[in-house]
């Protein structure tokens, strides 16, 4: 279900509305999801009731958004404690990362095939990276998951080759780290594909908008006090 909101809520202080999207998702649970509609695969953003859009929680069972209609805020940055090849980054570089734990004030964004019926599909649904437009033309984007045994599996990356894509069974959802190396508006084109038992190979490609929030200036930090400090997290 499409849901268009007027931007009547107060603007998020440390994130501007994106140039390409009418609304911004800043907190709560949402998924880059895929459903089957009219015999076609439909990649979209599925936000749950806890998701905050333009300053207001959606409530109820949430809503679906076309990827171009809403931006996903990435409000927190970290200083990397080690070189991180998946993002083409080095120790001490700044990265903006959406994590795999639910944290107040941050989108809790996953990938979902919950809307599909497992019995209708042969194998998994694969999400792969098709194209990335970064704010500055440089910088890197990646999606990765810890492997649980001390390393990571790189699922999407503009910095390294050999990313595997994210493979999900139908009827599940999972969370991965999503990272950026520069602030600004990022356009991330993702393709979801799978083999339907009767409809054959299906795919959907959509561009998702991420608004990576710049680190506040010193003057703004003084004005915002604790809020500014909460938006900037340094790894010790």
């Amino acid at each position, binding site marked *: 279900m499409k849901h268009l909101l007027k931007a009547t809520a107060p603007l998020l202080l440390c994130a501007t509305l994106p140039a390409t999207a009418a609304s911004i998702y800043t907190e*709560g*649970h949402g998924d880059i999801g895929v459903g089957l509609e009219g015999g076609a695969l439909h990649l979209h953003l599925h936000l*749950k*009731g*806890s998701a905050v859009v333009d300053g207001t929680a959606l409530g*109820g*069972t*949430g809503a679906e958004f076309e990827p171009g209609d809403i931006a996903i805020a990435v409000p927190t940055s*970290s200083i990397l*404690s*080690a070189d*991180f090849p998946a993002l083409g980054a080095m120790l001490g570089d700044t990265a903006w*990362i959406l*994590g*795999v*734990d*639910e944290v*107040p004030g941050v989108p809790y964004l996953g990938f*979902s095939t*919950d809307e599909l019926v*497992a*019995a209708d599909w042969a194998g*998994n649904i694969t999400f792969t990276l098709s194209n990335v437009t970064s704010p500055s033309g440089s910088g890197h984007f990646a999606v*990765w*998951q*810890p*492997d*649980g*045994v*001390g*390393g*990571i599996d790189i699922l999407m990356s503009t910095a390294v080759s050999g990313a595997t894509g994210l493979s*999900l*069974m*139908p*009827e*599940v*959802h*999972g*969370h991965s*780290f999503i*990272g950026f190396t520069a602030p600004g508006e990022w356009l991330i084109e993702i393709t979801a594909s799978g083999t339907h038992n009767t409809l054959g190979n299906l795919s959907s490609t959509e561009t998702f908008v991420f608004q990576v929030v710049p680190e506040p200036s010193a003057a703004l930090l003084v004005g915002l006090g604790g809020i500014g400090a909460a938006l900037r997290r340094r790894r010790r």
Partner: protein
Amino acid sequence: MRPLLVALGLQALAAASPPTDLIYGHHEIHVDYQSSPSDPDAGWSFSVSYDTDNDFTTNSGIVRLDPADTVFVASPATEKTVPNPPGFLSRFGPAGSKYWLLPFSPQLGTPYLGVRTTVPPGIFRQRVGDNYSPSPTGTISLRLISVEGPGAEAGGVFAAWRSDAMGAPIFAFDSSDGIGTGDEIPTIQVSSHTHYNWGFNRPGLYRVTLEAFGRLNSNNAFTSGRATLLFSIPFSSRLGDGDQLRLWATSQNGGPPVPTAAVADPQAAVFYDSQQTIWEVTRAATSAAAGLPGALWETNGTIARSGSAFSSGVGVDPQAVAAGLPDPSWSGVTWQLSDVEGPGHLAVLGSGGGLLASSHDGLNGQDAFSVPSTPLDIVFAFTSPGLYRARFRAAGTMNGQATLGPERILVFGVNLAGGFTYSQWADSFERSGGLPVGALADRDGDADRDGLPNATEFAFFFQGLSPVRPDRALMPRPRPTPEGYAAVEFLRDTWIDPLDETGWEIRPAASPDLQVWQIRSSRVSGEPLDVFETGAGPGNAHGRVVQRQLRVMPAPKDRHFFRFHVTPKP
């Protein structure tokens, strides 16, 4: 390959809440709290839950199972090896040792287990470190109290962890260094859902007791509640030199006790139903096997009427097996070899090389021997490599009453191991049945013309099937469960089908009308209180050959039909 229809019809019976094994699928350790001002501790409740609408941000669609009757079973895909260098996995053992990992992300054929809370906002204070402050939402905490059970008694470690963005572990619970104040998840948002990696390093049942706690917004009072969650790490189902036939008393249909035999692996401290094991024979015959003409392979073990008590039983009640057949209640106990099925001959010899029982000169009443009250060393000898089934019965006199036990099967793999291939199975049975080489190569063929394709005979080997003997009657048959649900029980060989689509697939299916079939698998698992594959049979432990059932809820059903889809590995 056409699915095999195995049964017709089942009478309606009453419904009940059943025990449930979870060997794959998405479930949660679920903590609920309801306001209980007069007794805050009474407000806590734990369950194992799943969500029928897959929306973990609402309270609709949640189905709760009793944790006391729900067991998380480590599937084959969860079995791992500690790498070299071990890193943080050294808590599970040195490089090369086994551990089992239930993963943080959804993976086919593994349990995908999280922690979920359903707590109304505003009941609890917000915890930051050791400080609590009033909050419109609030947080609770979860800590590890104890890890008990046969798995822990065997030295098993239990740990649960998340990972940071670099992949480094953030431990929630870790029993490897003892259990203390650090074994906690300090801050869980009310109404949240988080997944963890869950690790174990010894087979057996683990009873993990957790405590949820928090401070009430109203008066800062501390309140807590506890529950025990059950995890089962499978034993190997593989026997070998030094293992044991252990005689014990069972009761059939409520009748008087009769003698029977289980098998025991003293090193792993586990009893098994012999039909859920394979005794692997890897040694060339020595002079100990000379009593069997043409002996080429041998394995040694013991047969006993009593011995060490083990805490774990796969397909058997370990306490009942441990009770054995003691003097003076039991006397005149004998073990008789009644049938041997295999590509050669099988003999049982005593420690002095004397022949106790053998198929080489025909099996008759002479192929029985006394089992004394002290363990008897024995050697099993074989003339050819391949798969053997030794059918046997125990007999004895109990309190003056002569009894004869049920026929049981002991499975041997001579120069074969658990996880033998179709080709190895076919070669063995071609020789057993005197068939030409390649006669069983066609998986769709039916050499014994019993209506079961060769692929089905292979997939249900541990059910007792043979492709060279008409035995359709040995296929699983549906029956009502003790709680009254329609079900079909079967022995699942998780070497053949490790449940992650890397091997063969054996998928049970149910239908009310022979038209609409609900097929169940690790990919289409269904829901525990609907049509669902779960555990079955006695015992408190699991092996690689595991008793399962496709259970249909709710009850009653006027009739129900079952079949199996067997898909060979490409």
